[in-house]
């Protein structure tokens, strides 16, 4: 006969106001197998836990039911208390009589709440009687991390993990590290030059003993589970031998073919063999396969002729590398929304209508105009610039519903950069709200208005058209209630930040969630902001949603600290609530294999003594299994059962109802 104790918690008045806890305890007393019952004000308090431990020892209990709040809240607490009292922690079960009972019943006579609590507790009791002792699963950890994305968030994560003494593999799809931040001219609100603060970090990554850098590479496939991932990386052919290249630049100087530069957002050209920008890390060029006449039709080859170390190899092919890692940080960054959605602003039609990142390049000392603000059409210095904020942001009909968060600040910065470079120039900003939440941010935008004289107009622009060589901007200022027409020399659109094109693909490869905007989902938006639902995979930077540099860097560091914490132990404990296959009855239909969302079920051979394969059965990988129970529902022969939630237990609970 089992010896079970039932503890009913009053949770102050949370439970006691609609449930007669003493009566619940009293009812449980006569249940077969129950040797002790009690009700208590706060079971989760230290005295509550102490009395639980004492009772377990004193009455030699072999199982306990705590009728209290949701197991999400204190299951861990009570199981730990049991463990300390020498009882297997999985012999402690929670009956939720708060969230699913007392909180939803408002019967002051306590009648309904009490009856329901008794039912719930009795059901849990019957389930508990069939509980087995379970032990945590221990799995080994590969103490190397993969960071996907070499922007500022990824760089920070990689450096922090590597500085903590763990090996890191950093994968970047572009030919150089740097991401979007490397494109910026100055950064708000301190106006320090972006490249000046970014390039030292890039170089630090390149020189770090513990970081293996794969640029011009992409993650193809991810297998495995927390602590034990196997990652397949495609190293795209550079057509340049990375070991031999000295980065002298003879090849790209010689190359006669010019293509719109992606890094400069089409404001200038680059060669077909190129590094994206002068401070590229690594300073090794790549050949743009699609546009190289030598590769496409065996004509030219000038770069190879001038290359001193003879490192150009037109026959190079993509390489596939596999790496074993224990944790993954996703830091894939953002893109700008395509402005073609907003034809009324004339982006693409008028050369002098540009986006925010293009303005950054115009203002950057390393940009196409060496930092001089010149309009793209004729190179003239604009005497007036209209900045349009919220292009696509906060526009549910044509764009995205969210606020892109950084545009208010960078537009204020743009007006300041413009004023500092063109003293007699006038900037106009059409805004919806000035969202300057952040340290020294509000002061910054006020400075742009008060000291640098930016004219802020509250309203949207409805159209931009060309007339007599000027861009006529027609909008509204709702503060004065007037229609406003401005003849400008240039227009800058603060376009919405959006997720990367392939974000959904990557999310599916990694088995992490994403929202309707294809931004990766955090485990919990407040309390687990860098974790994903998949153990061992963490998030950093703008792949989660729009954010500024300080936030991205903080997230990079936060993700790194999570990785460090994971790597601090040699073995990883996992909950033993996993699926189990009774191999004797498995008929190898593989429905479970198809059903499992975590690819945790494999096909395994059963061999006889002679080593001949006699049958095939399903086998659960305990490291991957999350105990979701999908396979149990799918299994036709009732071969799979979930430890802690076996069919026997569930039926027993239902029968007790």
């Amino acid at each position: 006969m089992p010896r079970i104790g039932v503890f009913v918690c009053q949770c102050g008045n949370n439970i006691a106001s609609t449930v007669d806890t003493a009566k619940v305890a009293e009812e449980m007393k006569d249940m077969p197998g129950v040797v002790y019952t009690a009700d208590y004000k706060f079971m989760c308090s230290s005295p509550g836990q102490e009395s639980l431990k004492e009772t377990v020892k004193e009455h030699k209990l072999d199982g306990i039911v705590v009728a209290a709040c949701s197991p999400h809240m204190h299951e861990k607490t009570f199981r730990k208390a049991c463990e300390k009292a020498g009882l297997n922690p999985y012999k402690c079960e929670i009956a939720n009589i708060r969230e699913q009972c007392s909180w939803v019943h408002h019967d002051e006579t306590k009648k309904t709440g009490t009856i329901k609590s008794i039912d719930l507790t009795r059901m849990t009791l019957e389930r508990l009687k069939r509980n087995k002792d379970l032990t945590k699963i221990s799995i080994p950890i590969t103490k190397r991390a993969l960071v996907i994305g070499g922007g500022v968030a990824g760089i920070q994560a990689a450096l922090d993990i590597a500085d903590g003494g763990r090996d890191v593999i950093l994968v970047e799809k572009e030919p150089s590290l740097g991401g979007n931040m490397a494109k910026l001219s100055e950064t708000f609100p301190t106006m320090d030059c972006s490249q000046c603060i970014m390039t030292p970090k890039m170089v630090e990554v390149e020189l770090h003993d513990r970081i293996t850098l794969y640029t011009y590479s992409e993650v193809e496939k991810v297998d495995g589970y927390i602590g034990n991932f196997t990652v397949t990386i495609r190293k795209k052919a550079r057509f340049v031998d990375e070991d031999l290249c000295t980065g002298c630049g003879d090849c790209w100087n010689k190359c006669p073919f010019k293509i719109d530069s992606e890094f400069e957002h089409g404001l200038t050209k680059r060669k077909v063999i190129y590094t994206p920008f002068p401070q590229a890390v690594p300073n090794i060029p790549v050949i743009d396969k699609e546009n190289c006449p030598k590769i496409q039709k065996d004509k030219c080859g000038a770069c190879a002729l001038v290359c001193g170390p003879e490192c150009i190899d037109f026959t190079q092919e993509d390489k596939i590398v596999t790496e074993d890692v224990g944790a993954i940080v996703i830091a894939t960054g953002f893109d700008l929304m395509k402005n073609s959605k907003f034809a009324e602003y004339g982006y693409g039609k008028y050369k002098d209508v540009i986006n925010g990142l293009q303005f950054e390049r115009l203002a950057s000392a390393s940009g196409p105009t060496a930092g001089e603000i010149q309009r793209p059409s004729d190179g003239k210095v604009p005497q007036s610039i209209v900045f349009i904020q919220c292009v696509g942001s906060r526009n549910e009909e044509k764009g995205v519903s969210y606020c892109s968060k950084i545009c208010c600040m960078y537009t204020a910065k743009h007006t300041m950069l413009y004023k500092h470079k063109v003293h007699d120039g006038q900037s106009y900003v059409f805004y919806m709200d000035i969202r300057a939440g952040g340290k020294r941010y509000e002061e910054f935008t006020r400075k742009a208005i008060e000291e640098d004289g930016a004219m802020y107009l509250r309203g949207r622009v409805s159209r931009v058209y060309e007339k007599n060589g000027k861009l006529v901007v027609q909008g509204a200022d709702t503060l004065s209630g007037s229609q406003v027409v401005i003849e400008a020399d240039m227009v800058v659109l603060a376009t919405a930040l959006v997720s990367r094109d392939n974000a959904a693909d990557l999310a599916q490869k990694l088995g992490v969630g994403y929202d309707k905007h294809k931004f990766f989902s955090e485990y919990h938006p407040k309390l687990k902001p860098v974790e994903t639902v998949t153990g061992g995979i963490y998030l950093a930077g703008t792949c989660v949603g729009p954010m500024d540099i300080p936030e991205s860097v903080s997230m990079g560091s936060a993700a790194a600290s999570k990785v460090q914490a994971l790597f601090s132990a040699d073995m990883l404990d996992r909950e033993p609530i996993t699926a189990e296959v009774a191999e004797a009855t498995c008929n190898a239909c593989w429905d479970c294999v198809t059903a499992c969302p975590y690819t945790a079920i494999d096909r395994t051979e059963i061999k006889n003594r002679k080593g001949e394969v006699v049958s095939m059965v399903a086998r659960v990988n305990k490291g991957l299994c999350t105990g979701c129970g999908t396979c149990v529902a799918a299994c036709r022969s009732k071969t799979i059962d979930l430890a802690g939630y076996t069919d026997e237990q569930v039926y027993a609970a239902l029968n007790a109802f």
Partner: protein
Amino acid sequence: MKFKLKNENIASEFVAHIEKITGENAKRCYQCGNCTGGCPVSFKMDHGPCQIIRLMQMGQDEAVQEANSMWVCVGCMQCYSRCPQGVSAANIFEGLRQVVLRKGEDHQEIEDIPMPLLKGAPQQALVCGFRKFVS
């Protein structure tokens, strides 16, 4: 209203002059509307205090001078006492009136004020009236 905004508007000399004689900076105003909200007479104005400042920010000199607002203002200074940005709309109105009065328009001689009014009006009204109409 429809404005054609030009660089010259933003660099309006008229607005610069008002700012100089009043010591106020119209650009400081971020249009929260507290001045207009608290003003005891803004309901009688063509444009409330914050809107007058908005028109100044946009360099709309004529609209500012044409509005009756500066003449309706009683100079109670509530606008200034509440302004989170330290802008005094009352001061600006004072400055606007000075500019207009010094052109010789709307100027009142004390002798022209009828005795019964001088005798009957509360002192505060007289002080305010003199400030407003006697340059």
